[in-house]
């Protein structure tokens, strides 16, 4: 029997079943990776195993079996859970040292020499030794996560449950977090259950569990999983076929294709799974624009844009240029200054220093923006929509605000609903829809007035791989058909592949700005964009 055995575990919420009788097992020293879309049941399973929510089924850990949070109490000293969200378990006004003392106290750890030596080791491993006096509120996102992790490790748990510890964290800190985890499980024999949104990270784990709709649909080591989908992966097809999903230079098909095979990636798992469930990607169509306008060659030019929040510099003299019909990716970890930058472009934040010109017009005050409003489309973080109105009502409302005549608006809404594939959801409320559908319909809302430029703030975060693939197809079609320019922010480094040019931000500073092709040329031995950005991050220290 394995050290950790989970059998037929189900978690129910009011109407929803988050996990359907899931089983898994793990041994000391294993790192088990959970991958899957938001809402696939990863967090629910983690919380159930950690004994913080009610569940059906059994969990047995080293021979002790529990069915409920009450029964789990007994082995809580062995368990540690780090919930999702950067710095969620930290207190902004306590220093690093005070955090360690606090967590040691609530865990009732004897502060003997052995503990002090262990604490020093953790601090050293996390690189926080020099920052023990710094308040948690003043740490970067990566440091916060490292502090959260060592706080979770203080009582030497043997079962470590980490819910997306790296989401939104910069690539270097992500590597460091991984190193801590790897060292601890070797030394302490800890079982680690880790969910992640990054496939490169999942690839390093001993076993990967792929979640979909509350079930584990595939599991195995990275190599096993990749082998399992190799027969279905081909070089990208040129033409569209209904039973084939083509994305990121690869085509996936269950039926044999007359095409060269390609080396699969873990992401392919999601596409193969979709194909097996007959959930093929509907083709995305973008019709021609109704009105044609002349577009200046440079859409947006920012020179030395700077934003201060008190003493904190959110954006430090950033120069960025967006050319006509270009998809520009603005990449960086959480807190790198991406959203602040977009908000300055839009006039939602005051520009403290620097100059900005949009569509050939210098922006000195809000008055300069008036005539530009009808040429800019914006999708904000988390898809801002009115939750008490249906999709149709939302779109009509936005069309009215854009002063589009009603008959024309209805026509366009119908067209987009069909083209972007949310027509079946028109009379539903946004809260009832999957995130991917919300994402497509918020982009429709931003396209109603046929803008010349789109600003998209983290439109892909939390959305599952399939929806993300579809979303990028929409963006590419838009560029092709409309000649639209797009500025998109994301913390997924791998999405840089789909942009024409990328700008990398690190803590308010621009550290890279080049076309995708040039970046690959400059780093011939990089396997992925992750590696390329890592080299920039390391060069900056």
């Amino acid at each position, binding site marked *: 029997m394995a050290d950790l055995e989970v059998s037929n575990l189900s978690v129910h919420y009011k109407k929803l079943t988050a996990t359907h009788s899931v089983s898994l097992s793990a041994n000391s020293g294993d790192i088990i990776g959970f991958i899957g879309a938001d809402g696939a049941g990863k967090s629910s399973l983690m919380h159930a195993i950690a004994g913080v929510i009610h569940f059906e089924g059994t969990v047995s850990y080293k021979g002790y079996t529990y069915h409920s949070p009450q029964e789990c109490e007994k082995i809580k000293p062995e368990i540690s859970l780090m919930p999702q969200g950067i710095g969620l378990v930290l207190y902004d006004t306590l220093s690093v040292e005070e955090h360690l003392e606090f967590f040691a106290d609530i865990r009732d750890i004897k502060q003997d020499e052995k503990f002090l030596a262990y604490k020093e080791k953790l601090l050293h491993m996390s690189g926080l030794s020099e920052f023990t006096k710094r308040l948690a509120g003043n740490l970067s996102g990566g440091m916060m996560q490292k502090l959260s992790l060592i706080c979770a490790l203080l009582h030497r748990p043997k079962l470590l449950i980490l819910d997306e510890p790296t989401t939104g964290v910069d690539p270097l800190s992500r590597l460091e977090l991984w190193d801590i985890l790897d060292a601890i499980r070797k030394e302490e024999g800890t079982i680690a259950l880790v969910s992640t949104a990054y496939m490169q990270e999942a690839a390093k784990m001993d076993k990967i569990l792929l979640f979909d709709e509350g079930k584990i649909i595939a599991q195995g080591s990275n190599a096993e999983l990749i082998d399992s989908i190799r027969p279905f992966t081909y070089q990208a097809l040129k033409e569209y076929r209904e039973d084939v999903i083509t994305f990121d230079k690869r085509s996936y098909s269950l039926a044999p294709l007359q095409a060269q095979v390609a080396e699969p990636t873990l992401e392919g798992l999601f596409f193969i799974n979709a194909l097996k469930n007959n959930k093929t990607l509907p083709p995305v169509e973008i019709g021609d624009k109704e009105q044609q306008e002349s577009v200046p060659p440079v859409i947006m030019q920012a020179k030395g844009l700077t934003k201060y929040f008190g003493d904190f510099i959110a954006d430090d003299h950033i120069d960025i240029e967006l050319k006509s019909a270009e998809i520009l990716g603005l990449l960086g970890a959480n807190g790198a200054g991406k959203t602040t930058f977009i*908000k300055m472009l*839009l*006039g*939602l*934040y*005051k*520009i403290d220093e620097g100059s900005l010109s949009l569509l050939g017009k210098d922006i000195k*005050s*809000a008055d300069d*923006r*008036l005539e530009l*409003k*009808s040429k*800019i489309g*914006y999708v*904000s*973080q*988390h898809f*801002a*929509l*009115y*939750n*008490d*109105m249906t999709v149709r*009502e939302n779109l009509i*409302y*936005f069309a*009215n*605000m*854009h*002063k589009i005549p009603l008959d024309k608006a209805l026509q366009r809404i119908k067209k987009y609903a069909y083209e972007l594939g949310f027509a079946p959801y028109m009379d539903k409320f946004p809260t009832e829809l999957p995130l991917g559908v919300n994402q497509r319909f918020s982009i429709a809302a931003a396209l109603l007035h046929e803008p010349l430029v789109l600003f998209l703030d983290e439109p892909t975060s939390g959305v599952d791989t399939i929806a993300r693939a579809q979303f990028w197809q929409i963006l590419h079609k838009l560029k092709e058909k409309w000649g639209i320019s797009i500025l998109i922010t994301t913390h997924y480094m791998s999405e840089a592949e789909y942009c024409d040019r990328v700008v990398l931000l690190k803590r308010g500073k621009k550290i890279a700005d080049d076309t995708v092709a040039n970046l690959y040329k400059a780093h011939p031995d990089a396997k992925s964009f992750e590696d390329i950005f890592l080299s920039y991050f390391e060069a900056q220290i």
Partner: protein
Amino acid sequence: MKSFFTVFSKEIISFMRSIPLVAVILYSFTADIYIAGAGMQIKPRNVVIGYVDNSGGGLSQKILSHFHQPEFVTPKPYLSQKALSRAIFNKEVLVGLIFNSDFEKKYKKHEDTQLDVLIDATAASQSLTTLAYLHNIILDFEKVDIPLKLQSHKLFNQNADNHSFMALTELLSMITLLSVILTAIVFVKEKEDGTWDLMLLMPVNPKIIILAKSASQVFIVTAGVVLALGFVILTTFNTPLNGSFWSFMLLTLLYGFSSAGIGLFVAAISKDVMQVAQLSIVIMMPLIFLSGAWTPIYAMSPVFQKLSLISPLRYYIEGSESIFYRGTAFVDLLPYFGGVTLLGVLLYWYGFRKIGRLF
């Protein structure tokens, strides 16, 4: 103008879809006001009186027969003063009367007669009003002959009816509370959800959006006021409306906007609905204290009297009371209209600057 109605009707639809919110509004403008008005009791009710009668009956029973329902429960006899004291101690009796053995004898001889009264003073107002009743009863027995008589003339509220007054005050407080909180919430919810940023980027003047959004909430409150007047104030409690109905509605509308301005101010400085709840209380309390709702303005210290000028509620209460009870003419109400409008304009100006513009 079209944008104004687009936003306005969207807000009304959103409101109607939120069933709990509609229920709260309906409750606040009907049942709540009824309870506030009807529940106001200064008269004693079901007071238990105990007595020890050593005088042998007659006069003592005559006095006791004056205590009857619904104010008093039929007085209970006790055998000794000790038993009565224990009953008061055990909260079985609120007021105890002791008739001494020489009570009736002395009274008949026109000597100084004494009736001992024991009172549980923890329920101060009830027992003290009982005492006042007792005084009145005894006065009826005394035939004092002084050539002086009080003839009072009740002005403005002829029935000296506390119910209608309390109900009206409750209505005014509800208007204040709901206009501030409803308005603050519609703005903060948009800020929280991120839709406010989208609104600012629409090719519509943000001032129009702000006005339309707050107008929708003022409209909801005004509809509630009509409901309250129709079902509770003017009918159930028969509050006199000596002035013009329309001047009250106009004053209410202006005041609604002024309170919505406070809501806008609250929304502008808070991040989420939680903060709105906290800030609304912190901001509204001084405004209500200073308004004269709880303490008449003339009874305040001179500093607070001056400060009360910044509370729009002050103008509204004074104006409404004048309309209802005094029947003041429209022209004489202008200072109240002016005060409410001026404060409203200032608050909107701040709100526009704080959340209603791009840079």
